[in-house]
């Protein structure tokens, strides 16, 4: 049911907006095009910020430093009765959106959709956003370089979301 709702929203919104526009006598095609033009400028403005974030994170993962972090944190997780594989998701979630999707897909292949690890990872995935990416894109689009406390708060929210996901999953699914 939820799936149907999810998929329905998009087409309804698109058609809805255009219908309302027509009713209000808005020149829908022309308005659309004039609004759409900005898409290009914004996307291009974001590029330097994306490059900065992605290349730093890419190096971090390729160097093995991330695997080492996971290795260091494993004992804590095993003690909690949680598969250490979840650490990968916990660390990558604030760093990379596509990375998180990859990890989730990988966990599903390894453990199956009904396993605690996968449910916990999916909860982590759904409950927070990729802080570094959001900062790069949103602040980058308007040229903001000094982020002040935005990063701190973002990471605090991510950390809380991850811890909450772990505890809630343990409570609901085990």
């Amino acid at each position, binding site marked *: 049911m*939820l*799936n149907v709702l*999810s998929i329905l*929203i998009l087409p309804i*919104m698109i058609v809805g*907006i255009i219908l309302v526009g027509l*009713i*209000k006598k808005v020149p*829908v095609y022309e*308005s*659309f095009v004039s*609004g*759409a033009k900005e*898409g290009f400028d*914004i*996307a291009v403005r*974001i*590029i330097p910020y*994306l*490059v900065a974030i*992605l290349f*730093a994170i*890419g*190096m*971090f993962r*390729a*160097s*093995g*430093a991330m695997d080492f972090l996971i290795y260091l944190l494993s004992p804590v997780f095993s003690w909690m009765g949680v598969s250490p594989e979840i650490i990968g998701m916990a660390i990558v979630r604030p760093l990379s959106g596509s990375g998180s999707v990859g990890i*989730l897909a990988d966990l599903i292949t390894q453990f199956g959709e009904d396993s605690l690890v*996968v*449910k916990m990872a*999916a*909860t982590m*995935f*759904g*409950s*927070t956003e990729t802080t570094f990416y959001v*900062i790069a894109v*949103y*602040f980058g*689009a*308007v*040229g*903001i*370089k000094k982020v*002040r*406390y*935005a*990063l*701190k*708060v*973002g990471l*605090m*929210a*991510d950390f809380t*979301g991850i811890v*909450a*996901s772990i505890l809630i999953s343990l409570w*609901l699914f085990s």
Partner: protein
Amino acid sequence: MNKIWAGLIIVSFLFAIGSDIRDEWFNIHKNGNPIEVMVVNENAISFEQNIVSAKLVGEKGIQELVLSYSDSWPTKFVENAELRGKARETLRLTVVSQKGDQISALLPQVHVVKLRAITTAAFDMAETAVKIAIGLIGVMALWLGLLKIAEESNLVRRLVKFVHPLIGKLFPDIPKDHPALANISLNLTANILGLGNAATPLGIKAMEELQKLNKNSDTASDAMCMFLAINTSSVQLLPPVTLVALMGVGVSELMVSITLATIISTVVGISGALYFRRKSRKMEANYA
């Protein structure tokens, strides 16, 4: 942000160097340890029960076994090539000695694996960044176009009137009828409905409006920090499309846990933003 960014890069570099030095010290890749292969015929040798096509070239004393890539290469050869960044290329083994059908040969030496890996990653990611940005162009164009229609139909203004009492308190710096609030509401609504694709361009529009209210054009305003806090803590009541695709029917069960966790993270995010806002106001007052 500066320190974290520089930190990620420096740590990666140190790790890579450390890892490679450790490889050299313990000769993890066994450079200089020959492998044993058997000659099957003129065009093939066998290694650990795998037949590999190979040609012996050169004169006595300086001979090489030239192996052209094939999908059936034994793991050891594949790994050697990949570690040297030369996957699927022809492998040349240096012959050390030959006793009848048995040849002792050296695989090409493997060094600086991690340093090579981080360099490749850096350039690959730079390319990926551009691909992502270009991919964004289409989605942005689509939603910004629709948004323009909605703006001109006054849909947006009506939405603000509805949403303002709810979120006005979180953004006290935004004047009452400013379009920034409208765009923020649209972005949050898109997020709540699980429409990540729509949310991004709407969020950027919101940032543009907030930037117009911003006194220092290169520094994040309090409103921007609050907006970011709400966005990054992710407010979603309907499952994101990716999750539906990956998890199938099981998503409904997950929505309970996701909603609980996301509410907690959002509350923390908002509280954090409010706290730092008050703190920075106090500091400004002290200096005034």
